[in-house]
């Protein structure tokens, strides 16, 4: 009986994965045919939900370690798909994000038929990336993902700015793929030409240290570009804002995690323990991405650009966990490494949920007002209450506030870093580095709070700053349902952080090779755990917090109700907001720019603001007629590194073009010279 049940449950995972693949393919097919195009989002939802369920089933241990679907002939060019725990974690993130994003566009027409078909295929390609079990399948899926996302960003008739953002994205993603390709070639050569990841894992230990270092650098550079980590992030804040919002949601929520997945899969899982500097490089990238990402996010006035920079920040937070794991694994501290890696996995899933929510809500705002500029929004909470409430929950979650899910991931990351700083087996300087990373994470969390108070408060609270904002309307029902479910997920994943982190911790322990008996250094639990280990009892503590808030709310609301007069009208006296005795105007409110001003000033050495104030005075007096204020920050890396690099590569291309003068005789001469040189060299 037990066996039979096991067999049934064991079959569930392949069935779910097949359902997901078939549903997504059908969704793409439906999008191409005019009469069925309306079914595409629904089919995409079905496919995504199946994918999420499959991932959860694998994580819950319903299936043996891998669920394998062999597509195509075995051998060099086989598409070998199988999900282990690590792949399943990211499959869950993909399923949740994809389902909500697809649900939010139910009833909407895609910009064009190819784009309508590209979205489900894009989700499918990401699923293949997470499930690929050999180098060929991985690169195939990776390229598919890159090209489809590029199509979705650029569209068929792009404007000039969109096209330039798209070109930058395509260029950077292909340079990254080239680096990955070379890294794979080295790994494959080491494994005797075999492309299975299992073989690579076994062969990686046998590579020379120098080769391992080269492979590490190539793969890290390649995957960090996709993840949008500093200093390889330049494409991200350009490409994400211009994409349609449901695409931005999945790109920020899941696609950049494919880069994180790559780093974990290849730098931690397959390459195994490495020298200290591997971890230090990842930690440094993480700290830089987290702090700079959120600092730039806070400075943005474009809502979607703000969210894009915040994604860089969260990738940085995830990389802090990964980096600590690499350092600790390098010193044989498998259990502590698993703690840090588990934190990275938890934050990856949580960020997928939060960022999908925020981008869909930003899309609703864009749809309702045609505005992304925070300085022209305001007061939307009255006009679109569901969107506003969901955005506020997502903002609180991504600011790392208890009892929501963002707090759980950041808490575990803190614990991973502190565990690293207190590990005596690690050299003191490295411990100090990890302790410093704790400070970077604290700074990041505080700046994230500032950023999302600004985004929520300026866009949704106060009074509208423009006629467009005043004429806003609530989004359509599917979009509201998607937002509500994502907000509920933020709360649920926060309260259920115990089981969630246990499941992901098991995956992480499997990767770092921690024994089951190794003690857990810190834990999120559903009940208080004792024994002196630091804990956050997410369920009990979270519920107690919610109960306290609820009780106090009942007290204030009762006071409000009591002040109703006998005829039932509310007696709450409405007054004007205090503005020194004159009638309030929308322009009195703080704007997105002014809200960020103190931080911009505090960090002026890094941000290098360029501020221009033009005042026109009434002739002959000191009374101003008009004041124009313009302020821009400097994106240091873009201006100091990327711009010169760009100029240099254009110059190089022009030099190369001189070789391509046009006459056929010249090309024949090149060929002759090349053959001669080769003959001489081969002699």
């Amino acid at each position: 009986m037990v066996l039979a049940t096991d067999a049934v449950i064991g079959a569930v995972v392949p069935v779910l994965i097949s359902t997901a693949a078939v549903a997504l393919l059908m969704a793409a097919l439906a999008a191409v045919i005019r009469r069925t195009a309306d079914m595409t989002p629904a089919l995409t939802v079905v496919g995504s939900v199946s994918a999420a369920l499959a991932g959860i089933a694998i994580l819950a241990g319903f299936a043996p370690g891998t669920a394998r679907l062999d597509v195509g002939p075995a051998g060099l060019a086989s598409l070998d798909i199988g999900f282990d725990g690590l792949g399943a974690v990211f499959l869950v993130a993909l399923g949740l994000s994809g389902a909500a994003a697809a649900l939010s566009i139910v009833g909407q027409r895609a910009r064009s038929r190819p784009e309508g078909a590209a979205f489900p295929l894009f989700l499918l390609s990401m699923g293949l990336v997470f499930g690929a079990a050999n180098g060929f399948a991985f690169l195939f899926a990776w390229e598919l993902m890159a090209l489809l996302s590029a199509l979705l960003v650029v569209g068929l008739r792009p404007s000039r700015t969109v096209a330039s953002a798209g070109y930058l994205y395509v260029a950077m993603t292909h340079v990254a793929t080239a680096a990955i390709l070379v890294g794979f070639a080295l790994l494959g050569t080491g494994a005797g030409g075999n492309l299975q990841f299992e073989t690579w894992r076994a062969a990686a230990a046998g590579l020379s240290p120098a080769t391992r270092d080269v492979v590490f650098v190539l793969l890290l550079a390649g995957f960090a570009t996709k993840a949008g980590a500093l200093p390889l992030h330049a494409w991200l804040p350009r490409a994400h804002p211009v994409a349609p919002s449901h695409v931005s949601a999945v790109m920020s929520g899941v696609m950049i995690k494919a880069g994180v997945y790559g780093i974990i899969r290849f730098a931690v899982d397959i390459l195994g323990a490495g020298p200290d500097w591997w971890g230090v490089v990842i930690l440094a990238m993480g700290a830089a991405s987290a702090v700079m990402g959120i600092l730039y996010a806070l400075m943005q006035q474009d809502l979607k650009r703000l969210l894009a920079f915040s994604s860089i920040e969260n990738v940085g937070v995830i990389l802090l966990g990964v980096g600590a794991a690499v350092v600790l694994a390098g010193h044989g501290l498998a259990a502590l490494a698993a703690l840090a890696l588990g934190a990275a996995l938890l934050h990856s899933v949580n960020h997928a949920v939060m960022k999908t929510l925020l981008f869909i809500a930003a899309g609703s705002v864009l749809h309702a007002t045609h505005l992304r500029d925070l300085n022209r929004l305001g007061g939307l909470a009255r006009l679109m209450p569901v969107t506003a409430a969901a955005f506020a929950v997502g903002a609180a979650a991504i600011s790392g506030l208890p009892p929501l899910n963002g707090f759980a991931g950041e808490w575990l990351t803190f614990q991973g870093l502190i565990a690293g700083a207190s590990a005596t087996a690690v050299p003191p300087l490295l411990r100090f580095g990890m302790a410093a990373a704790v400070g970077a994470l604290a700074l990041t969390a505080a700046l994230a709070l500032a950023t999302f108070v600004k985004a929520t408060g300026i866009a949704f609270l106060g009074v509208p700053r423009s006629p467009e904002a005043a004429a806003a309307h609530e989004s359509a029902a599917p979009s509201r349902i998607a937002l509500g479910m994502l907000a509920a997920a933020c709360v649920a994943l926060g309260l259920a952080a115990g089981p969630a982190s246990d499941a992901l911790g098991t995956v992480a322990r499997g990767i770092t090779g921690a024994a089951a008996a190794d003690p857990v250094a810190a834990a999120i639990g559903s009940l208080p755990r004792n024994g002196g280990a630091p804990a956050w009892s997410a369920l009990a503590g979270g519920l107690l917090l919610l109960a306290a808030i609820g009780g106090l709310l009942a007290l204030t609301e009762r006071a409000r109700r009591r002040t109703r007069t006998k005829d039932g009208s509310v007696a709450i006296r409405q007054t004007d907001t205090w503005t020194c005795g004159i009638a309030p105007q929308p322009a009195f409110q703080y704007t997105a720019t002014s809200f960020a001003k103190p931080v911009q000033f505090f960090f002026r050495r890094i941000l290098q603001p360029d501020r221009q104030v033009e005042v026109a005075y009434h002739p002959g007096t000191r009374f101003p007629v008009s004041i124009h204020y313009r302020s821009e920050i400097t994106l240091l890396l873009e201006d100091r590194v990327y711009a010169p690099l760009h100029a240099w590569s254009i110059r190089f291309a022009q030099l190369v073009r001189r070789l391509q003068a046009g006459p056929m005789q010249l090309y024949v001469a090149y060929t002759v010279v090349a053959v001669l040189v080769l003959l001489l060299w081969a002699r």
Partner: protein
Amino acid sequence: MDAQLGDAAAMVVLAILQLIVLVAVAPLLAGTIRRTKARLQGRRGVPLLQPWLDLIKWWSKAPLNGGPAGIASRLAPPIALGAMLIAALLVPFLAWRGPLNGWGDLLVVVGLFALARFAIALAALDAGGAFGGMGASRDVAIAALAEPGLVFALVIAALAAGSTDLGAISWFGLRAGIGLLTPAHLLGAAAFAVVAVAETGHYPVDNPDTHLELTMIHEGMLLEASGRPLAMLMLGAQLKVVILASLFAAVFFPFGAATELTPAALAIGLVAGLIKLLLAGQALALLDATLTKVRILSLPDLIGTASLLSLAGLGAHLLLAS
């Protein structure tokens, strides 16, 4: 089993006791701060009970709604006070461990502070006035400076104790006795003190008694609040002072806290805790009365110094000790 049950019962009693004491003391502490400040400035000052009387007055008044203020203003006071009440149960005060020890560590306390700040800042933007925005914008910016210093200072103690659990840290301090006072520890304590002043909105960062429009930070955010919501926000702010002072005492100077849950030990712990609170309050009053406010633009120098102090403490702990 019986022992566990007894343990749980003791914790419930401890929780109720600690909550009552801290909530009762918080406005009183504010009263003593104001009294000392007034005396130092050559005034007689208001009665010690005045903060309590104010709270009771606001509690029974009908709230006014400022301009477009809506749901954010209604939710913020319960969220802010609720977060502080939970934090008050996590922090050790009477004994070496807080009543809810094991439910959350020092990072959870920092997280609860952030939750309260998030709610209050949004409520400040809700009414659509200039002063709310001004207060919120400054408050979150100062928090961005203060938080690394706060976490650094606490992590020094956590590394020494080997855990971020507040009970474990406090227990470690009680066991270590005078040996607790290492250079790293003292640097951390100094940094914490500076940051706590910024977090609680006292001189030289903010003036808790001001209503001069352009200088308000915390008061600016509460400008549109009235009635019972205002009472909740004020009590929350007063509780924050008590919690930070208790946190400081538990982490850096735990001496006197009860090491066992007997009435006698708890009574000594209560007296020791109240004396520490009073001392912390008097120190704040001294700052309020003797310092001029630092320009907000120069705050990074002050708070950045605190962060560097605690970074130096971390270095001393990790690089010198080993």
